[in-house]
């Protein structure tokens, strides 16, 4: 439970998941921001107005998934690092996960990485497909990782394997 240990329960996650039908249609945002806090940069970040206007800054973000095309612009604008983009139909066996990443060194394209879930547990391997790190993102890079489809909904972070034994 988020309140207990920072890991959302399946019920908590249910609230923020785009529908499976929407996931299958192509890239879409998932905003794992489940507490009313005074924060709203996500709303201003999206050029397609996929975030519904906040009546009050404490409101939780609400997304119109029909408007979102998964462009990923919002990812780097969220101070909570709570926004991800999922591309379920990416390839036959893999889905694509886009995450905000603020650690150094940055992973490189084609690098194999360990994939972690929301509790920081290893759940598999992934392949870095793209690293976006422009000035506009203000030091929050966006890393795209191809992961097996069956772990796409749980994968939320990566760990570099460089320098480890399995290297």
């Amino acid at each position, binding site marked *: 439970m988020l309140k207990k240990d*920072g890991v959302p329960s399946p019920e908590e996650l249910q609230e923020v998941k785009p529908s499976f039908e929407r996931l299958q249609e192509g890239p879409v945002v998932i905003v*794992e921001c489940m507490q009313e806090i*005074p924060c*709203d940069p996500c709303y201003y970040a999206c050029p397609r107005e996929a975030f519904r206007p906040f009546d009050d*800054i*404490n409101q939780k973000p609400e997304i119109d998934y029909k408007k979102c095309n998964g462009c990923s612009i919002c990812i780097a604008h969220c101070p909570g690092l709570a926004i991800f983009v999922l591309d379920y139909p990416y390839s036959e066996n893999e889905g694509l996960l886009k995450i905000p990443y603020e650690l*150094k060194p940055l992973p490189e394209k084609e690098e194999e990485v360990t994939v*972690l879930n929301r509790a920081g547990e290893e759940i598999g391997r992934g392949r870095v497909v793209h690293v976006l790190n422009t000035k506009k993102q203000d030091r929050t890079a966006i890393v795209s990782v191809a992961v097996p489809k069956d772990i796409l909904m749980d994968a*939320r972070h990566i760990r570099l394997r460089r320098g480890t034994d399995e290297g």
Partner: protein
Amino acid sequence: MRQTDLAIIGAGPAGLAAALEASRAGARVILLERDDWLGGQLVKQTHQFFGSKNEFAGMRGVDIATHFSEQIEKDENIQVFTGATALGFYEDGVLTAACAGRMIKIKPRTLLVASGAMEKMIPFENNDLPGVYGAGAVQTLMNVYGVAPGKKVLMVGAGNIGLIVSYQLIQAGIEVEAIIEGASHVGGYWVHASKIRRMGVPILTNHTILKARGQEKVEGALITRIDENWQPVPGEEREVSVDTVCLAVGLSPLAELLWQAGCEMEFSPQLGGYVPIRDSNLETTEEGIYIAGDVAGIEEATSAILEGQLAGISAARKMDYRIEEEKVEEIKANLETLRAGPVGEHIRQGLANVER
């Protein structure tokens, strides 16, 4: 003796915002800052800020500090003294400060105390061992001086500060063994907790530290599970191997100067300790003395900026400078919306007891 319209103590977000606002109305301002740089807590904040987009949310604290400092430097109404510690404010309305080994005296028409807060400590065995730090000290070491406090850290406190400093430690390549929290739930924003968790750092609620181990410096710590009454649960003790214990157990307002100035004070658990009684324009019970930011109640940078603006504009109005009344209402409305949600509830409760 220097004369000025408004003297401001502290150049954190509250003091900086106040200086700009008062100057805009035409007031002459002297800004005193103890550190050698402007920005207060902001300069240590390398993470993106929360809050309203209009008050710089999404920007990093250090960049907000730079943004303000540049404006202040250009402003001819504002005279800045860094490395200047305000020492006392006396009945005759004279403010003294120590600056570069000299004493300066200022006679301001109005005074704003925006001195921020200091960190709380908690009692446990060996809490004076080298290697036990406050979160603020750890941040200063890392983000201002670029020095690593240790290799492996136990963080005590899962409020926003504990969570954010843990994240910054990891970014600096330092291992965080665990974050422990006495309460039964994470006090900070859940998004901060989640971002640490997915990097593999456990967050142990209902846990506290019993002692730090080590002779010359920290070599480990004994932690335990506690019950709702904060009593250790037998058999739930555990040793952790760390070289640093970082305490992030809260802040309390740095209000000495206000006591000394004779302001009426009130203890407010919700606001972090003793805070001055104030009116809706942030004037204390002493006429012409204003407060803004963490010294008025522990809150956040966004509210510190808004309070700074409010105090700055109110002080200018007090001295009959022309101000826009709509601006005052706008700032107040912004503060109100900011505090309207569930995480602002304790602030609303606290303020209800100290606002007259």
